[in-house]
């Protein structure tokens, strides 16, 4: 049964990617709508795949790398779909879907890990929300990074006056910028709530509100950097390529926070 959902998810995401690509290159509106429909179906199938996993674990599946990656992919897809509906723009789908697929594939197909993990102290609703919201925030930041990268690419083509076929299909620069800002806003709100929940949980667990983990400092830095981006990207002087570069830089910091900080410095944050 779990395999069925995995295969279904893979199939629908792949079909969605194919449709979005067709929409981008051939400009067929129907292909774009199909992309959205398949992505929606993929989200549902992926949800059930995650649900299967959580039944085995009795919590949201973030206790291992595979579950975290898969959850990340799912939240990325969810955030993207939300943005697509809000901004009514489908040509970004072809750029986002490969990442969703990548996270899904690396999580589930490279080996699903063991279903049973050594019991940890990390349980409860507050903790579950802390992790889920944080992952949602990082998914939103990742999405906004992709949007900024497309912005820089298109901006470069337009500034150098080398227009290929794709330029006519990409969203307008202005829209890419607004999509990126909305995505960062989602990320900022979720990471703020997620972090507060994290502190509350630690407080309940240990009775002390603050014990030092380098992850705190990095997370606060990330929050600050994105707040700066959000503010600057709406001022004329920074609007455009500068803000987009800053946004990409921010995401590099996020990746560092995942890798160097989690692996070598933090005690309590293994995967996110």
């Amino acid at each position: 049964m779990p395999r069925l959902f995995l295969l279904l998810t893979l199939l629908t995401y792949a079909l969605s990617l194919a449709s979005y690509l067709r929409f981008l290159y051939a400009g067929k509106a129907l292909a774009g709508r199909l992309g959205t429909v398949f992505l929606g179906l993929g989200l549902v199938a992926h949800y059930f795949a995650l649900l299967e996993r959580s039944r085995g674990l009795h919590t949201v599946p973030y206790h291992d790398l595979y579950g975290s990656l898969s959850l990340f992919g799912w939240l990325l897809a969810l955030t993207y779909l939300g943005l697509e509906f809000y901004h009514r723009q489908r040509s970004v789908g072809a750029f986002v879907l490969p990442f969703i697929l990548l996270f899904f594939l690396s999580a589930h197909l490279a080996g699903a890990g063991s279903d049973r993990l050594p019991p940890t102290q990390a349980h409860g609703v507050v903790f579950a929300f802390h992790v889920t919201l944080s992952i949602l925030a990082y998914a939103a930041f990742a999405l906004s990074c992709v949007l900024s990268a497309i912005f820089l690419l298109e901006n470069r083509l337009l500034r150098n006056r080398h227009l290929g076929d794709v330029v006519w299909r990409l969203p307008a620069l202005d829209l890419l910028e607004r999509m990126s800002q909305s995505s960062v806003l989602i990320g900022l709100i979720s990471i703020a709530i997620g972090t507060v929940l994290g502190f509350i949980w630690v407080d309940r667990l240990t009775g002390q509100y603050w014990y030092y983990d380098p992850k705190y400092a990095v997370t606060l830095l990330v929050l600050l950097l994105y707040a700066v981006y959000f503010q600057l990207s709406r001022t004329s002087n920074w609007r455009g390529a500068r803000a987009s570069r800053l946004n990409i830089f921010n995401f590099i910091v996020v990746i560092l926070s995942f890798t160097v900080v989690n692996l070598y410095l933090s005690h309590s944050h293994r995967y996110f």
Partner: protein
Amino acid sequence: MEIVLVGLNHRTAPLDVRERVSFTLEQARRAADELRSRGLLEESLVLSTCNRSELYGVPPETSHECAPGLSSFLSEFHSVRPDVLNGLLYQHYDRSAVRHLFRVSAGLDSQLLGEAEILGQVREAYRFAHEQGATGPVLNRLFQGALETGKRVRSETELGTRPMSVAAAGVKLAERVFGKLADRTALVLGAGTISEQVVSTLRDRGVAHLFVMNRSRDRAEVLAQQFGGSVLDWGNWENALLTPDVVVCSISAEEPILPRKVLEQAMAARSNRALFLMDLGVPRNVEPAAADLYNLYIYNIDDLTEIVEQNRHARESEVPRAEAIVDEHVGKFLSWQASVELVGLVDALRSRIREERAAFIRARLDGMTLLHPGERERMETLMDELLEKLLVEPAERLRGEKELRRKIQNVEALRDLFLAKKDKL
């Protein structure tokens, strides 16, 4: 049932001839009426645009001789000597007439490949003729097919998507930067023909505010009035460049009107808010060195011409796909036409057989005096049953099986085979 088309277009006739035989709406209505009242056509439709004048119709008889009648009608209607139109008119029947119309409506027959206006013009001509009652079942179906073809070609191919004029390419590029231009401001420097084209395109794309600046204020005012903009004083760059998102310049001047320094100051004053500059002047109105300023997008006439050229190639490469859609719809229409004709043919055959049977029985059974009336009735019924059985099944299959109808290409031959000339529909 046949379709006939007589007309001329930009390929066959020079402009002065096209002007002389073009129809106003009122003339089109009158011509369509006259064609029917004179008995030339049973259904009629006049399609007249700046590039073509065409008469479509369904003649009362299946004869190939109605086209010359339509040609002379055309010259008579417009009081043009017939020899002027000699060799300029084309005539098409049935399949080739259908194909011609579908290609026209797809934009494949247009001077500017894939242009969008023609579909609207076909729709208008059809709506007009339909309201007037000039069209019938055949032309209705034909023009609905043409509109469907045109719509599909536009939605499924890129035949009409890329801008094909310098003005349109520039405005489309500005939309790449700003998205919809609805809440944007444009400033136009110069009031010549090119400026007018760009202003008109900008207005079409819904630009919110329009400012015009020209050395001679009078001409600027004419242009501003025509398109609902306001005039700014020449030379006050600081103010003029503060608000607009799109600036179009086409001024003939030896030196750049907008040197780098002016633009640098302007961008600083705007806090680097993005500015799209369309430089259509030769020599250039914008100093090329300004291209590296932050958030400034500069396109000159050569850049835009190159884009138009690329787009032309892109459009041409879409022609086979568009032609395939046209062919599909021509096939669809012809198979509809054939089905109507075939069903009509079978019905005619049945009524003819019924008549034949009555005559046959009269001739053969009248002599058989020993036959009991009951038996005679029974024989008649049996005969009827046999004949019906022979014909009902093919008739049902013709109604139901599309593929079969498509295979039967020549209904005319079938009719000749089974029905004597006098029985033709």
